[in-house]
């Protein structure tokens, strides 16, 4: 089972302490404290990253994104949100609470 596969809309996620991030205009860069690798986040990913600096359920994150990005439906957004967060969980950049 891949990391993050157990995620549900009621799972609470938060940015791991094993990283350092900084904003670059509307985007963001992460440095993993575990591996020393850098990761770039596009504006949408950076919005999610900003939201999960405090623990939040996926439901809350989705609602916030739908508010921020008009014209995007929950059906379009949800799979991408799951996919992105699963990737960050696998990289140990996000924790599930």
């Amino acid at each position, binding site marked *: 089972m891949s990391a993050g596969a157990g995620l549900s809309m009621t799972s609470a996620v938060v940015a791991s302490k094993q990283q350092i991030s*900084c904003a*670059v205009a509307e985007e963001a860069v992460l*440095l993993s404290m575990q591996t*020393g690798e850098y990761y*770039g986040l596009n504006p949408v990913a950076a919005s999610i990253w900003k939201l999960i600096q405090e623990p939040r359920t996926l439901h809350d994150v989705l609602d916030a994104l739908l508010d921020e990005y008009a014209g995007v439906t929950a059906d379009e957004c949800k799979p991408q949100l799951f996919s992105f967060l699963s990737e960050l969980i696998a990289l140990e950049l996000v924790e599930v609470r």
Partner: protein
Amino acid sequence: MIAGQRERAIPLHPEHLVAPSSVTHDYSVFGGNLRSEIPFPELVAAVCDRPDWTFRIARGAPAAVRLERIGERQLGPETYRLFRTSSGLRLEYSHAGLFDISNDGTSIVWYHRPDAHPELVRSIVLGSALALALELKGMLCLHGSAVALGRGSRAIAFLGPKYHGKSTLATALTAAGARLIGDDLLAITPGPPTTVRPGVASVRLWSDTARALSVDTLCARVIHGVKTTATAFSERALVRGVAPLSAVYVLDPVGTGGEQAAGRRERLGGVAAAIALAHQTKLPGTLVGLHAAGSQLAAAAAVAATVPVWTLRAVRDFSVLPALVEQILEWHQEDTL
């Protein structure tokens, strides 16, 4: 104040490094003053009341202190290790001994090792040791070379790992009328305005490069297959003040096959630019630890937000170097005014 007169190169033998501590030398470098117990022939002599940094030689073994290991860097057979102590940082270098840097970065103490080559000791002080001190003050220290153009002394920097042609390009541009800001270590203050401090006024080149660029006359010795130091640049070819940073190029040398131009550049977006700069720090994360690497990343992001960062695919061939220099000067026509 800069005395305006370079010290003559003094041939040093390791034993001469342990000169009486009452003899000190003041120099101007990286926009500050260094007071040293050993001469630095590659630096500009200065007159100062209060140095920004002092370099002393400890007489005897270091006291037993608790060491917290931060990181390590392996460069061929050479190893650097960095430790935290109660009073600052300790840099241990396999071929030159121990360097203690105070918490505020103002004091560098070397525990003398008789077999350490003086040039190596000087290069560590002017490289890793001062880079650690400068980063404690919030500067971003990058591995690269820089030149300034025009009356505004607008700086362009060339970054990249060893053998990517940074020093070659900086020297070729200097020969074409630009002024040298520094080679190897670039001390950058993130802006706005982002600026670069004047570094060491010498360039390390391979002997064939020195000959191809006709700068072998600036080198004390040119030995085949060995890097040599070109130091005798005229005062007009050097920048002595802080310069605004106009552009950064991350070098990506390519072969001659299929390339139409001597060099092609591509502007990096904000995130890619910040990561590219973070990859070219003088002090890698493996040595300074990831917390310090996080500070470097923040500084790199601030630089990337204020200065265009490009990748430069430059053809690695001496015969096209003049065309590459011409191309770069054309890109920066406004800076040359």
